[in-house]
Protein backbone atom coordinates (compact mmCIF):
# COMPACT_ATOMS: atom_id res chain seq x y z
CA UNK A 1 0.00 0.00 0.00
CA UNK A 2 1.40 3.34 -1.07
CA UNK A 3 0.93 5.19 2.20
CA UNK A 4 2.34 2.29 4.15
CA UNK A 5 5.52 2.25 2.13
CA UNK A 6 5.92 5.98 2.39
CA UNK A 7 5.61 5.93 6.15
CA UNK A 8 8.18 3.15 6.50
CA UNK A 9 10.46 5.02 4.13
CA UNK A 10 10.12 8.25 6.08
CA UNK A 11 10.59 6.43 9.35
CA UNK A 12 13.84 4.88 8.14
CA UNK A 13 15.12 7.87 6.16
CA UNK A 14 13.48 11.00 7.48
CA UNK A 15 13.83 13.93 5.11
CA UNK A 16 14.28 17.60 6.02
CA UNK A 17 15.74 17.01 9.44
CA UNK A 18 17.32 20.15 10.75
CA UNK A 19 16.61 23.71 11.72
CA UNK A 20 16.14 27.17 10.27
CA UNK A 21 17.04 30.49 11.83
CA UNK A 22 14.06 31.26 14.03
CA UNK A 23 15.07 34.93 14.19
CA UNK A 24 14.61 35.28 10.45
CA UNK A 25 11.32 37.07 9.82
CA UNK A 26 10.55 34.75 6.96
CA UNK A 27 10.75 31.74 9.27
CA UNK A 28 7.90 30.46 11.37
CA UNK A 29 8.53 27.95 14.15
CA UNK A 30 5.96 25.57 15.54
CA UNK A 31 6.79 23.62 18.70
CA UNK A 32 4.26 21.05 19.84
CA UNK A 33 4.22 18.07 22.10
CA UNK A 34 2.18 15.00 22.92
CA UNK A 35 3.02 14.04 26.51
CA UNK A 36 1.41 10.60 26.27
CA UNK A 37 4.35 9.23 24.31
CA UNK A 38 6.76 11.96 25.30
CA UNK A 39 6.72 13.27 21.72
CA UNK A 40 8.18 16.68 20.99
CA UNK A 41 8.07 18.10 17.48
CA UNK A 42 9.54 21.31 16.11
CA UNK A 43 8.57 22.20 12.59
CA UNK A 44 9.90 25.27 10.83
CA UNK A 45 8.89 26.85 7.54
CA UNK A 46 10.60 29.47 5.45
CA UNK A 47 8.19 31.48 3.37
CA UNK A 48 9.11 33.78 0.51
CA UNK A 49 7.48 37.11 -0.28
CA UNK A 50 4.97 35.40 -2.56
CA UNK A 51 3.70 33.41 0.37
CA UNK A 52 5.14 30.13 -0.85
CA UNK A 53 6.90 27.75 1.51
CA UNK A 54 10.44 27.54 0.14
CA UNK A 55 11.86 25.30 2.78
CA UNK A 56 10.72 23.26 5.72
CA UNK A 57 12.71 21.54 8.42
CA UNK A 58 11.78 19.50 11.44
CA UNK A 59 13.21 17.91 14.57
CA UNK A 60 11.10 15.28 16.23
CA UNK A 61 11.89 13.13 19.24
CA UNK A 62 9.33 10.49 20.03
CA UNK A 63 7.58 7.48 18.62
CA UNK A 64 8.10 6.24 15.07
CA UNK A 65 4.71 7.48 13.89
CA UNK A 66 5.47 11.03 15.05
CA UNK A 67 8.83 11.05 13.28
CA UNK A 68 7.39 9.66 10.05
CA UNK A 69 4.43 12.00 10.02
CA UNK A 70 6.57 15.13 10.53
CA UNK A 71 8.94 14.03 7.79
CA UNK A 72 6.00 13.43 5.44
CA UNK A 73 4.44 16.76 6.36
CA UNK A 74 7.58 18.82 5.65
CA UNK A 75 7.91 17.13 2.29
CA UNK A 76 4.30 17.80 1.44
CA UNK A 77 4.26 21.49 2.35
CA UNK A 78 7.41 22.48 0.46
CA UNK A 79 6.32 24.41 -2.58
CA UNK A 80 2.82 24.96 -1.29
CA UNK A 81 1.39 28.32 -0.39
CA UNK A 82 0.79 29.17 3.22
CA UNK A 83 -2.95 29.13 2.62
CA UNK A 84 -2.77 25.64 1.14
CA UNK A 85 -0.68 24.50 4.12
CA UNK A 86 -3.24 26.04 6.51
CA UNK A 87 -5.86 23.80 5.00
CA UNK A 88 -3.65 20.73 5.10
CA UNK A 89 -5.76 17.69 4.77
CA UNK A 90 -5.06 14.07 4.48
CA UNK A 91 -5.48 13.43 0.79
CA UNK A 92 -4.04 9.94 0.66
CA UNK A 93 -6.37 7.60 -1.14
CA UNK A 94 -6.64 4.43 0.83
CA UNK A 95 -6.68 1.08 -0.94
CA UNK A 96 -8.91 -0.53 1.64
CA UNK A 97 -12.00 0.61 3.44
CA UNK A 98 -10.81 -0.76 6.79
CA UNK A 99 -7.62 1.04 7.71
CA UNK A 100 -5.29 0.41 10.61
CA UNK A 101 -5.77 2.72 13.56
CA UNK A 102 -3.96 5.96 14.19
CA UNK A 103 -2.60 6.61 17.67
CA UNK A 104 -4.73 9.29 19.28
CA UNK A 105 -1.92 11.60 20.23
CA UNK A 106 -0.06 11.18 16.95
CA UNK A 107 -3.14 12.16 15.03
CA UNK A 108 -2.87 15.74 13.79
CA UNK A 109 0.43 16.35 15.59
CA UNK A 110 2.21 17.39 12.42
CA UNK A 111 -0.81 19.44 11.37
CA UNK A 112 -0.79 21.22 14.73
CA UNK A 113 2.91 21.92 14.31
CA UNK A 114 2.32 23.45 10.89
CA UNK A 115 -0.51 25.63 12.21
CA UNK A 116 1.73 26.77 15.06
CA UNK A 117 4.52 27.62 12.62
CA UNK A 118 2.17 29.65 10.47
CA UNK A 119 0.82 31.47 13.51
CA UNK A 120 4.35 32.27 14.63
CA UNK A 121 5.13 33.67 11.20
CA UNK A 122 2.01 35.82 11.17
CA UNK A 123 2.79 37.12 14.64
CA UNK A 124 6.12 38.38 13.33
CA UNK A 125 4.42 40.66 10.81
Amino acid sequence: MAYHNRVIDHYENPRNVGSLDDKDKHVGTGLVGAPACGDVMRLQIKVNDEGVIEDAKFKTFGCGSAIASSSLATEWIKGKSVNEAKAIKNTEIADYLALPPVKMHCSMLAEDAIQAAIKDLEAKK
Partner: protein
Amino acid sequence: MSKTYNCVSCKAPLEENLVICRVCQALQPIYSEVSPFRYFGFDPQFDLDELKLEREYLDLQVVVHPDKQAKRSAEECEYAKSHAIKVTQAYETLKDPIKRAQALMHLKGIELNLETHIQDPELLQQTLERQESLSNLSSKAAIKAFIDESEVAEAIVMQELSQAFRESNFDAVPERVAALRYAQKLYRDARMKLMHLTS
Protein backbone atom coordinates in the same frame (compact mmCIF):
# COMPACT_ATOMS: atom_id res chain seq x y z
CA MET B 1 -13.54 9.25 51.09
CA SER B 2 -16.72 9.48 53.06
CA LYS B 3 -18.44 6.28 51.97
CA THR B 4 -18.00 3.28 54.24
CA TYR B 5 -18.05 -0.24 52.93
CA ASN B 6 -19.10 -3.26 54.92
CA CYS B 7 -18.30 -6.92 54.45
CA VAL B 8 -21.05 -8.70 52.51
CA SER B 9 -20.71 -11.68 54.80
CA CYS B 10 -20.09 -10.57 58.39
CA LYS B 11 -21.04 -6.87 57.95
CA ALA B 12 -17.84 -5.68 59.64
CA PRO B 13 -16.59 -2.36 58.18
CA LEU B 14 -13.89 -2.78 55.54
CA GLU B 15 -11.25 -0.50 56.92
CA GLU B 16 -8.37 -1.48 54.67
CA ASN B 17 -8.64 -2.88 51.15
CA LEU B 18 -11.97 -3.69 49.53
CA VAL B 19 -10.91 -7.13 48.34
CA ILE B 20 -11.07 -9.30 51.42
CA CYS B 21 -12.56 -8.88 54.86
CA ARG B 22 -9.87 -8.95 57.55
CA VAL B 23 -12.33 -10.31 60.06
CA CYS B 24 -13.99 -13.22 58.30
CA GLN B 25 -11.80 -13.64 55.17
CA ALA B 26 -14.75 -13.44 52.79
CA LEU B 27 -14.07 -12.12 49.28
CA GLN B 28 -15.96 -8.96 48.50
CA PRO B 29 -17.81 -8.09 45.31
CA ILE B 30 -16.35 -5.47 42.99
CA TYR B 31 -17.39 -1.90 43.62
CA SER B 32 -16.75 -0.40 40.22
CA GLU B 33 -16.79 3.22 41.32
CA VAL B 34 -13.97 3.02 43.87
CA SER B 35 -10.65 4.71 43.30
CA PRO B 36 -7.52 2.56 43.24
CA PHE B 37 -6.56 4.28 46.52
CA ARG B 38 -9.70 3.17 48.35
CA TYR B 39 -9.52 -0.26 46.72
CA PHE B 40 -6.08 -0.87 48.24
CA GLY B 41 -6.92 0.95 51.46
CA PHE B 42 -4.46 3.79 50.84
CA ASP B 43 -4.97 7.49 51.57
CA PRO B 44 -5.72 9.44 48.40
CA GLN B 45 -2.49 11.40 48.17
CA PHE B 46 0.43 11.67 45.81
CA ASP B 47 3.15 10.60 48.25
CA LEU B 48 3.17 6.84 48.53
CA ASP B 49 4.99 4.26 50.62
CA GLU B 50 6.37 2.08 47.81
CA LEU B 51 7.25 -0.84 50.07
CA LYS B 52 3.78 -0.86 51.56
CA LEU B 53 2.33 -0.92 48.05
CA GLU B 54 4.48 -3.89 47.01
CA ARG B 55 3.50 -5.82 50.17
CA GLU B 56 -0.18 -5.11 49.75
CA TYR B 57 -0.05 -6.07 46.07
CA LEU B 58 1.56 -9.45 46.77
CA ASP B 59 -0.74 -10.17 49.70
CA LEU B 60 -3.75 -9.47 47.53
CA GLN B 61 -2.41 -11.55 44.66
CA VAL B 62 -2.23 -14.54 46.99
CA VAL B 63 -5.91 -13.96 47.71
CA VAL B 64 -7.26 -13.31 44.20
CA HIS B 65 -4.91 -14.96 41.72
CA PRO B 66 -6.72 -17.51 39.48
CA ASP B 67 -4.35 -20.27 40.64
CA LYS B 68 -5.41 -19.89 44.25
CA GLN B 69 -9.15 -20.36 43.91
CA ALA B 70 -9.37 -24.14 44.30
CA LYS B 71 -11.04 -23.94 47.70
CA ARG B 72 -13.53 -21.15 47.00
CA SER B 73 -17.24 -21.24 46.35
CA ALA B 74 -18.46 -20.57 42.82
CA GLU B 75 -19.64 -17.11 43.80
CA GLU B 76 -16.33 -16.13 45.35
CA CYS B 77 -14.52 -17.50 42.26
CA GLU B 78 -16.44 -15.01 40.15
CA TYR B 79 -15.41 -12.16 42.46
CA ALA B 80 -11.82 -13.40 42.34
CA LYS B 81 -11.73 -13.30 38.56
CA SER B 82 -12.65 -9.62 38.47
CA HIS B 83 -10.41 -8.79 41.40
CA ALA B 84 -7.41 -10.45 39.75
CA ILE B 85 -7.45 -7.92 36.92
CA LYS B 86 -8.46 -5.01 39.14
CA VAL B 87 -5.70 -5.67 41.69
CA THR B 88 -3.07 -5.53 38.96
CA GLN B 89 -4.61 -2.43 37.37
CA ALA B 90 -4.91 -0.61 40.69
CA TYR B 91 -1.33 -1.57 41.56
CA GLU B 92 -0.04 -0.25 38.26
CA THR B 93 -2.02 2.96 38.66
CA LEU B 94 -0.66 3.58 42.16
CA LYS B 95 2.89 2.58 41.23
CA ASP B 96 3.21 4.89 38.22
CA PRO B 97 3.42 8.50 39.45
CA ILE B 98 1.72 9.82 36.33
CA LYS B 99 -1.21 7.40 36.56
CA ARG B 100 -1.38 8.13 40.27
CA ALA B 101 -1.58 11.84 39.53
CA GLN B 102 -4.33 11.20 36.98
CA ALA B 103 -6.28 9.13 39.50
CA LEU B 104 -5.97 11.88 42.13
CA MET B 105 -7.10 14.57 39.71
CA HIS B 106 -10.03 12.36 38.73
CA LEU B 107 -11.05 12.35 42.40
CA LYS B 108 -11.05 16.14 42.24
CA GLY B 109 -13.25 16.04 39.16
CA ILE B 110 -10.46 17.09 36.82
CA GLU B 111 -9.56 14.94 33.82
CA LEU B 112 -5.87 14.89 33.01
CA ASN B 113 -5.59 13.85 29.39
CA LEU B 114 -2.03 13.23 28.23
CA GLU B 115 -3.07 12.74 24.66
CA THR B 116 -3.95 16.40 24.25
CA HIS B 117 -1.27 18.31 22.43
CA ILE B 118 0.62 20.96 24.34
CA GLN B 119 2.49 24.02 23.20
CA ASP B 120 4.31 24.95 26.40
CA PRO B 121 7.35 26.69 24.85
CA GLU B 122 9.65 26.45 27.87
CA LEU B 123 9.08 22.77 28.58
CA LEU B 124 9.22 21.72 24.95
CA GLN B 125 12.26 23.81 24.13
CA GLN B 126 14.13 22.42 27.11
CA THR B 127 13.18 18.86 26.15
CA LEU B 128 14.22 19.40 22.56
CA GLU B 129 17.60 20.72 23.63
CA ARG B 130 18.18 17.85 26.05
CA GLN B 131 17.27 15.29 23.39
CA GLU B 132 19.57 16.97 20.92
CA SER B 133 22.42 16.88 23.44
CA LEU B 134 21.84 13.19 24.00
CA SER B 135 21.91 12.45 20.29
CA ASN B 136 25.30 14.18 20.05
CA LEU B 137 26.92 12.09 22.81
CA SER B 138 29.00 9.09 21.82
CA SER B 139 31.21 8.13 24.75
CA LYS B 140 30.09 5.78 27.52
CA ALA B 141 31.27 8.23 30.17
CA ALA B 142 29.34 11.13 28.69
CA ILE B 143 26.18 9.08 28.39
CA LYS B 144 26.52 7.81 31.96
CA ALA B 145 26.86 11.40 33.16
CA PHE B 146 23.75 12.30 31.16
CA ILE B 147 21.87 9.41 32.76
CA ASP B 148 22.79 10.65 36.23
CA GLU B 149 21.69 14.18 35.38
CA SER B 150 18.42 12.91 33.96
CA GLU B 151 17.77 10.88 37.07
CA VAL B 152 18.25 13.98 39.21
CA ALA B 153 16.08 16.08 36.91
CA GLU B 154 13.31 13.48 37.13
CA ALA B 155 13.54 13.42 40.93
CA ILE B 156 13.20 17.19 41.02
CA VAL B 157 10.06 17.14 38.91
CA MET B 158 8.64 14.43 41.18
CA GLN B 159 9.24 16.65 44.20
CA GLU B 160 7.56 19.59 42.48
CA LEU B 161 4.58 17.45 41.57
CA SER B 162 4.35 16.16 45.11
CA GLN B 163 4.44 19.73 46.40
CA ALA B 164 1.73 20.84 43.99
CA PHE B 165 -0.58 18.15 45.36
CA ARG B 166 0.28 18.86 48.96
CA GLU B 167 -0.52 22.52 48.43
CA SER B 168 -3.65 21.61 46.48
CA ASN B 169 -2.23 23.63 43.62
CA PHE B 170 -4.13 21.69 40.97
CA ASP B 171 -3.53 24.25 38.24
CA ALA B 172 0.16 23.44 38.32
CA VAL B 173 -0.36 19.69 38.07
CA PRO B 174 -0.97 19.15 34.32
CA GLU B 175 2.20 20.98 33.36
CA ARG B 176 4.33 19.18 35.94
CA VAL B 177 2.87 15.83 34.86
CA ALA B 178 3.85 16.56 31.25
CA ALA B 179 7.29 17.60 32.50
CA LEU B 180 7.57 14.33 34.37
CA ARG B 181 6.71 12.33 31.30
CA TYR B 182 9.40 14.10 29.26
CA ALA B 183 11.93 13.65 32.09
CA GLN B 184 11.14 9.93 32.29
CA LYS B 185 11.60 9.57 28.56
CA LEU B 186 14.97 11.32 28.59
CA TYR B 187 16.18 9.02 31.34
CA ARG B 188 14.94 5.94 29.50
CA ASP B 189 16.33 7.04 26.12
CA ALA B 190 19.73 7.70 27.69
CA ARG B 191 19.78 4.28 29.32
CA MET B 192 18.82 2.63 26.05
CA LYS B 193 21.57 4.47 24.24
CA LEU B 194 24.09 3.20 26.78
CA MET B 195 22.79 -0.35 26.49
CA HIS B 196 23.12 -0.33 22.69
CA LEU B 197 26.60 1.04 22.98
CA THR B 198 27.79 -1.59 25.42
CA SER B 199 26.00 -4.71 24.13
